[in-house]
């Protein structure tokens, strides 16, 4: 028989140990940074007809700026020994546009970004063992961590419930067992929980941020599914489910889309003028309901159909056609790696910088000074916002312990630390099921390595041969959609709907 150990050895090399961190960070450097900038696109100001246009972002190689202002490349070991931060400058192409005229265009330094050791921008990238030794590095060091003020910090891999996926389960509501379908809809760091529940009278209700329990039919009517037939068809063509839907339609509060929007308006802007109510209701529908499907008017129909799928799941559970979803099934988990975490962090830090730039520009304009990019940027704002969470582990969104001091008790403990996966579940509650070793963890998570004590089963470690896949970029999904259409897929009425599901 084939000696599989040879195969295993060839596959699992020392480069593989922290590869997931490094690849994820590289992804962030190459695409994530630019993505965040593109989301922002421009910085609007309160100065009439003036805004800042944002262009390409560039990352330098790690450098150190000495007290005398001299800038020199730095290697990780120097950063460790001198208690420095291993970071590079970030440069962003910016232009101030006033009255459609470009006043100032520059590639400006907007701050500094800590660089992961052995990532693409690291000065150690691609060095041979001998060269590494010359730079004061241990050639067996896997990299994958940051150096902040001289201490090595690892970003923990966070395990989360998969976003944008429908989960059905039973819930207790005043002693009644009801079926609910939940989705954590996520887009650009914004997370919204959308819940469709079937109450004891089979009436569907939907809750999402800023709206608590609105009638399902009202909601989909507001989203543009006006006719009874459309509504039923968007849920299911199964006769039993159709029966449930007919009950729902019978109980419907509204008949038309306009009425429905006003009904929602009464919920989100009670006691306001009708016109405002309508505006507010549409705003809430676009921004807070299922944000992963988009925040434009044209996405509403898609949202209605998505809600239809959630409703169907609820009824199927009620009819016993499917069981509760297993939240511990590893297919329902997503890992948030260093790159994703840095992206979250950079998004918040950059929006803070953008706000500061806006403020600085407005102040300059008030004092009738010439608008200038370099004076408007206070690069410390961004740098500080990025380094502080890395140094303390207090991430944006109130998560703590995200960055940890790399465990260097011995070599193996370092390796183990770099491959650790943390579940955000609270350690004080039992959560028996979440702590169990789930069969789907085979080949993904080590069955043996977990701490004893309160963190048992919540802190895990990647299996030796695990391979992490990365989510697709939106334009790549677009290609798939086109392919599907070519194969004869029928788009749901209303244009580009449904495909983002």
């Amino acid at each position, binding site marked *: 028989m084939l000696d599989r150990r040879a195969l295993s050895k060839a596959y699992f090399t020392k480069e593989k140990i922290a590869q997931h961190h490094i690849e994820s960070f590289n992804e962030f450097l190459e695409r994530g940074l630019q993505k965040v900038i593109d989301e922002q696109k421009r910085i609007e100001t309160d100065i009439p007809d003036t805004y800042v246009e944002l262009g390409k972002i560039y990352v330098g190689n790690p450098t150190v700026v000495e007290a005398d202002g001299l800038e020199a490349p730095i290697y990780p070991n120097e950063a460790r020994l001198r208690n420095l931060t291993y970071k590079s400058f970030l440069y962003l192409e910016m232009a101030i546009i006033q009255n459609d005229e470009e006043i100032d265009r520059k590639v400006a330094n907007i701050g500094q970004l800590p660089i992961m050791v052995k990532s693409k921008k690291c000065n150690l990238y691609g060095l041979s063992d001998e060269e590494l030794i010359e730079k004061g590095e241990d050639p067996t060091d896997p990299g994958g961590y940051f150096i902040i003020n001289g201490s090595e910090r690892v970003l923990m891999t966070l395990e989360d419930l998969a976003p944008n996926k429908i989960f059905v389960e039973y819930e207790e509501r005043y002693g009644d067992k009801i079926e609910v379908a939940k989705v954590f809809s996520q887009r650009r760091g914004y997370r919204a929980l959308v819940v469709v529940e079937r109450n004891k009278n089979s009436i569907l209700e939907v809750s999402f941020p800023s709206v608590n329990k609105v009638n399902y039919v009202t909601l989909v009517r507001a989203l543009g599914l006006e006719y009874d037939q459309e509504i039923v068809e968007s849920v299911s063509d199964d006769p039993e489910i159709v029966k449930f839907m007919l009950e729902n339609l019978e109980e419907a509060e509204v008949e038309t889309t306009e009425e429905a929007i006003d009904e929602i308006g009464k919920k989100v802007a009670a006691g306001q003028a009708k016109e405002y109510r309508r505006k507010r209701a549409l705003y809430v529908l676009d921004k807070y309901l299922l944000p992963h499907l988009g925040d434009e008017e044209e996405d509403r129909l898609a949202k209605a159909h998505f809600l239809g799928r959630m409703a169907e799941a609820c009824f199927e559970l009620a009819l016993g056609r499917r069981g509760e979803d297993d939240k511990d099934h590893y297919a329902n988990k997503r890992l948030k790696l260093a790159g994703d975490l840095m992206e979250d962090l950079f998004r918040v830090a950059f929006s803070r910088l953008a706000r500061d730039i806006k403020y600085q520009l407005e102040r300059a304009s008030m004092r009738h000074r010439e608008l200038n990019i370099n004076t408007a940027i206070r690069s410390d704002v961004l740098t500080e916002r990025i380094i502080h969470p890395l140094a303390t582990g207090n991430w944006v969104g109130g998560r703590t312990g995200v960055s940890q001091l790399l465990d260097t008790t011995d070599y193996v403990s370092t390796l183990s630390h770099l491959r650790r996966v943390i579940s955000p579940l609270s350690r004080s509650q039992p959560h028996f099921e979440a702590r169990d070793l789930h069969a789907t963890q085979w080949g993904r998570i080590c069955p043996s390595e*977990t701490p004893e004590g*309160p963190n048992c089963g919540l802190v895990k470690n990647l299996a030796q041969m695990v391979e992490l896949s990365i989510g697709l970029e939106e334009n790549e999904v677009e290609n798939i959609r086109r392919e599907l259409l070519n194969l004869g897929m029928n788009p749901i009425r209303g244009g580009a709907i449904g495909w983002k599901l």
Partner: protein
Amino acid sequence: MPIPLTPKRIESIKFGILSPREIRRMSVTKIITADTYDDDGFPIEMGLMDPRLGVIDPGLRCKTCGQKAGECPGHFGHIELAAPVIHVGYAKVIKKLLESTCRKCGRLNLREEEKKRFLEQIRTRKEMDLPYDDIINRVFKEAKKEKVCVHCGEEQKEIILEKPTTFYEGEHRLTPTDVRERLERIPDDDLEVIGMDPENARPEWMVLTVLPVPPVTMRPSITLESGQRSEDDLTHKLVDIIRINQRFQENREAGAPQLIIEDLWELLQYHVTTYLDNEVSGVPPARHRSGRPLKTLAQRLKGKEGRFRGSLSGKRVNFSARTVISPDPCLRISEVGVPLEVAKELTVPIYVTPRNIDECREYVRRGPDNHPGANYVKRPDGRRVKITENNKEELAEMLAPGWIVERQLKDGDIVLFNRQPSLHRMSIMAHEVRVLPYKTFRLNPTVCPPYNADFDGDEMNLHVPQTEEARAEARILMHIQENILSPRFGGPIIGGIHDYITGLYLLTRKNILFSEEETMELVRNLDLRALPDPCEIKNGRRYWSGKQIFSLTLPKELNLRYQAEICRGCEICKEENCEYDAFVVIKDGELICGTIDEKGIGAFKGKILDAIVKKFGSEVASKFLDDVTRLAIRSIMHFGFSFGIDDEDIPREARRQIADVIKKAEERVARLIEAYVNGELEPLPGRTIEETVELKIMQELAKARDMAGEIAGRYLGPDNSAVVMAVSGARGSMLNLTQMAACVGQQSVRGERINRGYHGRTLPHFKIGDLGARARGFVSRSYKDGLSPTEFFFHAIGGREGLVDTAVRTSQSGYLQRRLINALQDLEVKYDGTVRDARGTIVQFVYGEDGIDPARSDYGKSINVKEIVSEILGEGGDGK
């Protein structure tokens, strides 16, 4: 000389609100300036560091009481507030009061007869010492209901409390002055109905007009290395208050516009609020210059590190030590090995008298570095002098009766030894010191069970009692030998474990004979004068049996009969003629037959131990334990005892049989599943078919594993080390052995086979819908064979559950323990035999309803009639 210790009794404690008068009365000075020190570093009079408030600098004397730093407790000052402010802590009560009283006449908005009714109810409750807050809540509710004053007819308006301290009446805002005026109008008579005592807590005192300034001793300033002074957080906050107070006054006197006055008033309110509590929701916390939120009054008291939980319930102590523990079977059970370094640091105070002065001189002369020496002497005037190489001779000469010598710990001293968690009283016991080299505390392994200690890195604490009373109590109540019997179950909790049991089992098993040499070697450590007659003489050489040797440790008057741990539980007990030698008979301190095992001398179960403590007292028992453990160690060393991988070896024939058993079981399981799939299975009563098939499969597989274990056990034989340990109760079980040598068996999660995983199957290695044994976590191999990858994974699943369980259980049991202790801590058995709580209420008429001290009971039962009868009739042995 120390202050004579005359205990004082607290008559009662009264709680109330400080009235402005009281605050001024207890104040030694009014504080008017926000400055603390002048340029020369002297405290400013009428400033926050006024010397009359107490002293913190050593060498200075308090201007109020004339005492030195450390003696003077400090004295309060006060700040006259320019305008009243609401006390945050009382905002809720104030709201209730405003709502329930008339806005004009200030009387409680209840009709006289209603008021009387409530008052009566409250008074009866008070008389019966019962809580009456529910009545008061009803009073508030009733009084709030009235929209018009029942006394003066004034229409009542709605009071809104905008958290934390702002009051509105409808739209109109109430200033603290308005609030105070209203509260003042509430007559004393109405207060009792609201549950307030007008003597000690007038409602208007909840609005502050005077602020007490705590003494400097409770807000000491620290001098940094740079010579800079750093003030306490409270001082900082008081500075803020005084500043704003002054500004407010100046502005008002200067006739500033109303808007500015209101702003300043609000600012003053903010500062007073954060001074009292810096974590009020809705108020941004006051911050230090560095951005750190200030720790103000409420923060000092609150939480785990607060005054109550951190400093009062959880004090730190001197004269204690903590280090890793390790075993030492050569120690007596009542001893603890103390490292020399620790012994040199810990001291016992000795009062010098004419009788012991020479001894004391010797200690002092030896100094701190020469082990049983002394570290300090205390002179009659209370001064403590450190003994050094230079002054030791001098001090030894000066020594006289009345001095106290702090002598280093030496052999024989009584100390308390403790291991957390201290769940029962045996978690702290008194040991005698044995000063030993190296750095760990040593203890005899027999005392591991009460402490629940092992030696995988456990640490324990040691405390040295400092007074004769404490030492006497420790000796009489807490000494190891007084705690051999556990009040938990009325049996011995200290006793043989692990190798002690194995050793004695090997010694007393069968009729093994020992030559004179061997016998001598075995009993070397026992305190013996003579050996009994040998039981056999062969070729002119004398031989003793193991049972004879064991009997040497028993008291001569001991009579006992019981079934040993190795008893197979035959239907009819053959007693003395048991073929397994499992029936123990001890007659007149002589082991006639039977094997000594866990049931004889083990902790928790040891019958012999139990009998000895109860019949002969703890002294004899302690001696017995010392002897028997030493004998056991000698015995196990004589035989030699080890366990290795080859002890799990079973012959090929056995393996074949086991494989056969498992194969058959799997076939039966397959048939069960087939029957289930075909719907031919009859459900068990009260269960679904699914549950039935699961249950039957589990039974089938458990049976298969047991059979496999039996086969393995048969082939391993009674001399196998693992079998010896399992049978004698020393360690492990036959199940452990089965898993090692024969078959690991079914892995389970929460009592069920492993079912979770992919859709319709556990692992992708199996077909969807496979319910077979192997697909659901049956491990057919043994640890020795090695598990297949899927088996290994199932085993990890099962193992994880155990791990999680232990982790969750420990935290839950800790919390349960806390709650139990909180509920039971004040219960006491009084001299009349009743159990009463702190207020004297009877909880039980007789302790435990039977008046039995469980520690003196027979495994929880009051008396063992059978034993008494046999003892009186026939002196044990054959008494029936």
